[in-house]
């Protein structure tokens, strides 16, 4: 059971990572980050069950809280970026070039 759960979690993380690395749309990027976070959450829960403690599940609550906050701030930034640049294509927004 644990193995299957971890495989699903790893697959989710990989999908998220590939999405972060390849997609240019800011919104999709956020969604991919959420996917990766949830893959980690799934791992936490699975491990928590395996070891019989509740610490991992407590962590998940924290992660979800932070993720919610992050989404709120991130989406606000995306809206601001869209208002300013008229696009959310990250390849076209590179003002902080060195």
């Amino acid at each position: 059971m644990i193995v299957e759960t971890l495989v699903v979690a790893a697959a989710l993380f990989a999908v998220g990572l590939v999405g972060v690395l390849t997609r240019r749309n800011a919104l999709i990027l956020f969604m991919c980050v959420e996917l990766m976070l949830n893959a980690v959450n799934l791992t936490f829960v699975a491990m928590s069950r395996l070891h019989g403690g509740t610490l991992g599940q407590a962590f998940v609550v924290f992660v979800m809280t932070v993720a919610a906050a992050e989404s709120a701030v991130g989406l606000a930034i995306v809206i601001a970026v869209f208002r300013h640049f008229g696009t959310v294509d990250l390849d076209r927004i590179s003002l902080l070039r060195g």
Partner: protein
Amino acid sequence: MVLALLQPAAVSASPAAAHPLAGTAASLVWLLPLLPLLGFVINGLLSVVPAARGAHVAVEGGAEGHDDKHGGAHGATLAPNARLVSLIGPTVIGAAFAVACAIFFAMRAAPAGAVATPFVQTYGSWMPAGELRLDWAFQVDQLSILMALVITGVGTLIHVFSVGYMYRDPSFARYFAYLNLFVAFMLVLVLGASYPVLFVGWEGVGLASYLLIGFWFTERQNAAAGKKAFVVNRIGDFGFLVAMFLMFANFGALDFAGVNAGAALLPTGSAVATAICLFVFLGCAGKSAQIPLYVWLPDAMAGPTPVSALIHAATMVTAGVYLVARSGVLFALSPVASLVVALVGALTALFAATIGLKQWDIKKVLAYSTVSQLGYMFMAAGVGAYSAAVFHLVTHAFFKALLFLGAGSVIYALHEAYHATHRDEQDAQDMRNMGGLRRFMPVTWALMWIATLAISGVPPFAGFFSKDQILGAVFARAHESAFTATTLAGVGGATWLYLIYGVGLVTALLTAVYMTRLMLYTFHGANRTGEGERSHLREAPWVMTAPVAVLGVATVVAGWLNLPEVVHHVLPLGTVGALDRWLAPATTGVLAAARVRPLAPEAHLSAGTEQALIGAAVAVAALGIAAAVVLLRRTPLVPKDDDTAAESGVERTLRHAYYVDEALERGVARPLATFSRVVLWRGVDTGLVNGLLVRGAALGARGLATLGAAAQTGRVGSYAWVVAVGALFVIGLVALR
């Protein structure tokens, strides 16, 4: 701190208590340099303080006085405090002379032979470092007190003369401050009880000399002459320093007693002694203007004439002779080095005398004459006849100071005359502008003739006795001395000594010629100063003639200090060999104490030989004077302006001093300047340091920064890649560990 400084003094005072001079006036030896130093401080302050308040006075006077290179500036404005300065300046030196006299008489009062060792006074510890113990210490012995007497005695006279000569110079106080400073350092030089203390004085007089040569520094050539003196002296000082390093490395001591004790353990002819002696002599060659470092002295005539008299004739330039005499133990161990000293001295004496034959500048003649006479002293010092060397040092101090001061009076008179007719651009030092001055300056004329006869070696004047003693000493040592067993460059020591004697004799002849020439051109014949100036020519004021007159008396009688026996039979003017006996503890005594065999036994020539030598010397002097009179009668001089006289090649070479300065300029100065400019400046400084290192560092940093900046693309995607790859890398590291 103060207690710690005083402690060694208290400790070393106890053994000195046994010295016969303890508790006498000799304990006041610290006053000797302190009095002139006090004068320096007061005059120095006087020269600075009013300049702040009454600056316009000084500037006004400066504008008027600084175009004047010959002293006796004629600005109507006197330097502020001139009266006070002219009182303090000579007084402090006179007081020092009184102290020196008191010490001298205290030494005389001591029972005969009691003052066999130097009386050393320690005032504090200077460099206690490891095994080196170096104290601030002065030593009173027969040699140092004789030098102190000459320095303060002649110094007082020259200070008094300076009051007249420099009175109207706007920088009067500064002049006396420097002159007092010089005397203070000169006394440190001769009184120091160790080589480093001597070196302090050595460098100090170099500084004072530099300041006074460039006294009228607003003229570029004067400032350049000062710099030249300083730089050339540095070469000599390097030699002296190396000699001191070698002494410390080999003997572990630097005070005279310690070095003598250490040197006594070396075998005769040891390489160490030879090396030390040669390096010491390099220092002497710099300070005392010997080949190859003599070139600064003729240029040093850019200073005021009393300075030339005091520093560049009577005292400072003889410091090298003093140093060799002081290092007698070391030189006794190295006949080769001693022979080198004598040879260089003889060569310098002849070389400078020939140049003196064709100079037009009256001070240049005297300058080359000084170089030549210093060569004489080194001839004597080189063959180990330290008493003769010091004797000539003393007599030379008198007659050369007289000649310089007399020349100063002449220059002063000409300058006043040219100033009165507003022809200041005329050269008051050129003998072609003089002639017939005897009518206008009879006192100076008579006194300078005395000095001329003295330097030419005419009895019974001072120079005759000292020069004769030197020549006799050289001749005697060719017969019997450590030199007869020595060879230099494959030639036996005896041959070299005969050669040196011959050179000495020829030099005596040339000396008589150029000095007579100087006198004839200056004081005899028709006057060439100028029609308008003639009525303005007059004798210098008494404040200038009086010191010269005193020197005239000294020039006559100084030679009687050390009469040779054969002369004493004819002219019983004094006691036989008084100076030799007086100096014996400091010259032969230290050798005996260190158990070092002297270079030669006491000179014992048969009365017949001695008479023949004296006869030859006198004949040469008479021949020289007669030759000059006869030869120069036939060449009437024209004023400098219309000088079209054709010169032969030899004459031109002599007038240009063998083109040594030009050769040094081309061979040393310019290549050095080119090397410095091309290699050191453009190559090393601009190229390597500035270009490669400084700019290179900046360029490197900028390049690295560009690389770093390129990594910051501003694209979130690329950052994500970096993070992902980095994370993968770290995971890989952890997993593979």
